[in-house]
C-alpha cells in the first residue's frame, strides 16, 4: 500500500490547482521546502510571495489578498501560523476573509525537532473560531480532494498536514465530502474515531484487536469543524463506547469535539487518547508514537485497558 506525507500531497495538488485557477496565490514564511509550497513557487513565481519569517504579517497580507478576490493559501508549520491567533481571529475569521490556512508538521509525528516545532494545540485554536472550517486529512487521496475543496470554497479554512509518511486508508474511488465522517472498518464492541496521522495505525490496531476477540470499528473524522454530529451519535449508539485517537492535545482537538457531541446527546461513553495535556519532545517518529501509544500496538493497549476495567 502506498505511503506519502500529506504535506507532499498538498504540494502536488496545489501545483495542479494553480494551473487551473489563476486566482490562486500562495504565501510562505521561509518554510516552502518543508510545507512543499515550493512546487507552486517554482512553477508560478509571479503568484508566490515569500514573506520571510513573519507569520503574523503573512496572515494579514493573506487577508487583504482574499478580500480583494484572490484565493490565498498561506503556509507554515501548524504551530507557527496558528500561534498568531489574534491575527487569524480578527483579520481572517471575523473578517470572513477566505484565507486558506495550511499548517504542516502536525503533532509529535514530526519527530526530532521537538516540541517547539510541533503543532499540538492548533485544532483547538482553529475550532474555536466562528466561520472557520477545520480539516485534517488522513492520506494522499483525501488530502488532494480536501485541498481542492478549499480552493473551490470561498470561506476561511484551516488544514492540518503531516510531515511523516502515512499509509493510504482510502481506495482509489474515494470521494471526500466536507463534514462527513468515513467508516473505514465496521465494528460492534467499540468505535475508534481517529483523525490525521494516526488513522492508519487505528486501522492496523482494529486488525490486531480482532484477533484478540474485540470488534473495533474505525471511523475517520477528517472534518473537525463542522463536526459530523449525526455520525458520532450513530456510532456511539451502535457500539456504546467511543475512543478518539489523535496526534494532538486531548484538550481542544478531536477528543473535545466528540466529547461536546456526546455530552449533549448522551449517545455513548467516551475515552480520549492523544497527548494528555502534555507538550511534545524530541525523538524519532517511531519512538515517539511508541512512547505516546499512537502506533497500532499502543492503540491496542489503550483499547484493551478500557475493556479490562
Amino acid at each position: 500500500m502506498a505511503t506519502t506525507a500529506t504535506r507532499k500531497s498538498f504540494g502536488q495538488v496545489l501545483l495542479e490547482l494553480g494551473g487551473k485557477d489563476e486566482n490562486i496565490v500562495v504565501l510562505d514564511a521561509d518554510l516552502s521546502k518543508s510545507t512543499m509550497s515550493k512546487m507552486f513557487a517554482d512553477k508560478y513565481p509571479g503568484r508566490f510571495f515569500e514573506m520571510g519569517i513573519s507569520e503574523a504579517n503573512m496572515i494579514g497580507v493573506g487577508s487583504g489578498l482574499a478580500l480583494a478576490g484572490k484565493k490565498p493559501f498561506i503556509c507554515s508549520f501548524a504551530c507557527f501560523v496558528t500561534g498568531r491567533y489574534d491575527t487569524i481571529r480578527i483579520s481572517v475569521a471575523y473578517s470572513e476573509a477566505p484565507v486558506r490556512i495550511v499548517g504542516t508538521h502536525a503533532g509529535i509525528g514530526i519527530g526530532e525537532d521537538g516540541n517547539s516545532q510541533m503543532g499540538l494545540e492548533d485544532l483547538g485554536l482553529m475550532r474555536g473560531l466562528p466561520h472557520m472550517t477545520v480539516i485534517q486529512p488522513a492520506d494522499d487521496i483525501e488530502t488532494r480532494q480536501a485541498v481542492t475543496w478549499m480552493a473551490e470554497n470561498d470561506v476561511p479554512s484551516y488544514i492540518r498536514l503531516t510531515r511523516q509518511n502515512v499509509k493510504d486508508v482510502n481506495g482509489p474511488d474515494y470521494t471526500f465530502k466536507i463534514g462527513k465522517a468515513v467508516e473505514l472498518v465496521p465494528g460492534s464492541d467499540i468505535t475508534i474515531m481517529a483523525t490525521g496521522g494516526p488513522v492508519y495505525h487505528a486501522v492496523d490496531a482494529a486488525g490486531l484487536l480482532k484477533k484478540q476477540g474485540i470488534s473495533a470499528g474505525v471511523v475517520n473524522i477528517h472534518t473537525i469543524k463542522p463536526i459530523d454530529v449525526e455520525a458520532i451519535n450513530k456510532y456511539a449508539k451502535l457500539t456504546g463506547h467511543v475512543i478518539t485517537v489523535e496526534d494532538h492535545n486531548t484538550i481542544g482537538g478531536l477528543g473535545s469535539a466528540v466529547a461536546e457531541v456526546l455530552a449533549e446527546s448522551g449517545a455513548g461513553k467516551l475515552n480520549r487518547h492523544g497527548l494528555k495535556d502534555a507538550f511534545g519532545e524530541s525523538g524519532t517518529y517511531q519512538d515517539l508514537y511508541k512512547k505516546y501509544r499512537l502506533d497500532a500496538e499502543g492503540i491496542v493497549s489503550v483499547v484493551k485497558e478500557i475493556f479490562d476495567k
Partner: protein
Amino acid sequence: MAQCYDIEYLRELARQSRIDVIKMLEAAKSGHPGGSLSEIEILVALYGHVMKHDNDNINMKDRDRFVLSKGHGIPGLYAVMANLDYWPREDLLSLRTVNSRFQGHPDRVRLPGLEASTGSLGQGLSIAIGYALASKLDNDAYRVYCVIGDGESQEGQIWEAALSAPKFKLDNLVCILDYNKGQIDGFVKDVMPLEPIADKWKAFGWHVIKVDGHDIDELIRAFEEAASIKGKPTFILADTVKGKGVSFMEGLIDWHGVAPNKEEAEQALKELGA
C-alpha cells in the same frame, strides 16, 4: 578595566565545540549545522570569558543571563557548555532522542542551565528584556545577553523588543546578531532584505558595534565597550559565515538543517583537527 584572558584557550574551546557539534549532529542524524557553527565564537567569548557564571552553581543568584533566541542553534551552546563542564560530553550524543535532556531546541525545564525555552523564532529578545528589567529592579545585579538570527530578525516581535529596550534604558542588555546571511528558503537579502541593519538599530536607540563574529578578541572588546555604555542597550552586529569551520558547509543554505552523514562527518572532523 579589561581583564586578561588566554586567547589560545578560547580558540581551542571554539575548535573543540565545533567538533562536538559535528559529532552530535551525526549521531542524531538531524539538526542545524549552519547556524550552530556560525555562532561558536560569540558563545565562546561570552561563556569562556565575558559572562559571570558558575557550572558548579547553575542557580547562582547574580549570574549573567544568556538567551539563545535562535533556538535551533542549540547544539553550539550544548557543546560550549559541555566543554565548560556543565555536563559530560558523552551525554551530548543523546541529542534529539526520546527522554534526552538535549532536546532539538532549548528546553529550560529539562536542562537546568539554560535560561529560556526557545525554538519558535522571534521570542528570545523579549525574554532577555524581562531579565534585564528584573536585574535593574535588583540594583543591576547581572547583565543579559541574547543571540538572534538574521532570518529571525524578520519577526515583528524582534522589532517590538528593539523598540522597548531603549525606552527602559537597558544598558545591562546586549543583543548579538549572528549575521550569517542565510536562512532556509535562501539568502536573507532575497527572502526579506534587512539592510541597512546597523542604521535600523541605531535609529531605534541602540548603541551599535560591528565586529568580525569569528574574531574572539574583537568580540570581547565589543562586550567590554557595551559594559561601559550608560543609558542604552547595545546591539552587536557580528559578521559571520554560516557553517563556519567546515569547508563544504561554509556559506551554503543547504546546510541549514541537514546533519552530516558518516563520511561527511569524518571529513568535517578531519578539517577541524579532531
